[in-house]
Structure formats: C-alpha cells, structure tokens
C-alpha cells in the first residue's frame, strides 16, 4: 500500500526524495520504495523520517481502518 502521507509531507516541505534521503542517511531508492509501499522501514528509519519532516509517527505511519 502506497504511503501518500510521507509524499504529501515531503512535498509540503518542498523536499525531493534525494533531499529526504540525505537527511535520513539512506538512499533515494529506499525513500522511493517506502513511498511506493514496497518496503516497510524499521522504527529507527521511521523516526528519522518523522524528525526530518517535523511529523509524528501517527501522522505518517498510522493507518485508520
């Protein structure tokens, strides 16, 4: 399942996938895979993404049924 919340938050901060990847210390392809729902990140990377985008885990990763 695609993670549109990260994509939206990233776009909201006017960051490219490459910018976000550098901030989190991962490759651009990893950010791309997370946004496409192809990869489930560890909690450590989730926190790094949240800090980079000034969001909480709930904002970016919690899904309402």
């Amino acid at each position, binding site marked *: 399942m695609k993670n549109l919340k990260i994509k939206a938050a990233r776009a909201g901060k006017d960051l490219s*996938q490459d910018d976000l990847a550098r901030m989190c*210390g*991962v490759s651009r392809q*990893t950010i791309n895979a997370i946004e496409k729902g192809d990869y489930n*990140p560890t909690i450590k990377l989730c926190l790094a993404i949240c800090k980079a985008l000034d969001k909480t885990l709930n904002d970016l990763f919690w899904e309402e049924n």
Partner: protein
Amino acid sequence: MDKGMFLSVSIGLVIGLLLSVVLITVIIRRDNSLKGNYDERQELNRGRAFKGGFYTVLICCGVIWFLGMAKYEFNCDAGFLAGIAASFGLMVYGVIAVALDAYLALNDRPGTTIGCMAAIAIVNYLVFLMYYNMGFVVRDGKLTSGCVNLMIAIALTVILGAVLIKRFTDKGGGDEES
C-alpha cells in the same frame, strides 16, 4: 600447472588483489572509510544477493560433482572448474544486488565505481590474452586455470551491463519520484 606458470598466476593474483584494495580504499570510497555504508533496505537486499550467489556456487559445485561421479571426462583442470563456479556466483550476486539497488554503497561514487569496474574487466581481458599468447590457457588439450581471468572479466562485464541498464531505466523515469 608448471612452476613458471604457477609463479606467474600467483604474482598476477597478488597484484590484482593489491590493486583492488587500493582502488576501493583510495578512489571509490568518498570519505576513505573502508566499510561501505549501506542503508537498512540495501543490507536486506545484499543478504538476498549473497544467498543467490551462494546457491549458484553450490549448484555449480553439485553439477561438477555429479558429472565427476558419472565419470564425465572434463576437458579442463580443477582450477578452471572452480573458477567457473566462483565466477557464476560473483555474477549472480552482482546482478541481483544491482537489480535490488544494493550494489553501490551510500559513500560510493557511481561514475568512479563504474570506471574502476570497467578498468578491472579490461585488465582481466588483457591478462587472459597474455596467458593465451604464452600458451597457459590450454595444456595437453585441457583448459587450465589461466581462463579464470576471462571468467572474472565476463562476470564483471555482465555486472557492469546490469549497472548501466539499471541507471538507464532509473533515469528513464520508471523509478524516479513524481
């Protein structure tokens, strides 16, 4: 393998290994750190690639062992067979790692890495040609371990091709952000 050939192959191997270490530590790594810096997804995918390479070597060894048990007459020596198994393993590992975006570390410079791989492949082709001209490749009608350089060169060429195709398809927009 006679003493002269063994000495030539040994010297070639040592020089090749030293050259590889120098290339990796001095040229490819941006911050001169020996350890490649892979992210968590790349580490996971590298594990998959290692598994693929390992099973390839295992299958190659199994086939060679089976043919040996069946009294199949190989027109090559043991070094050649070992080289085939290792080269196939290397090739499968490289191609899977490239396909899963896990070949280049975060601190690798892609252009330099591709250039170094091409240089190493060319050197291996040249060493093979040198061995061929010196008559080390075929002995008593059998292929010898002098072909190992050719196998490594072919494996590197295939990996290089996979890297270039991957970069081309990524730039084509298929994997880029929207």
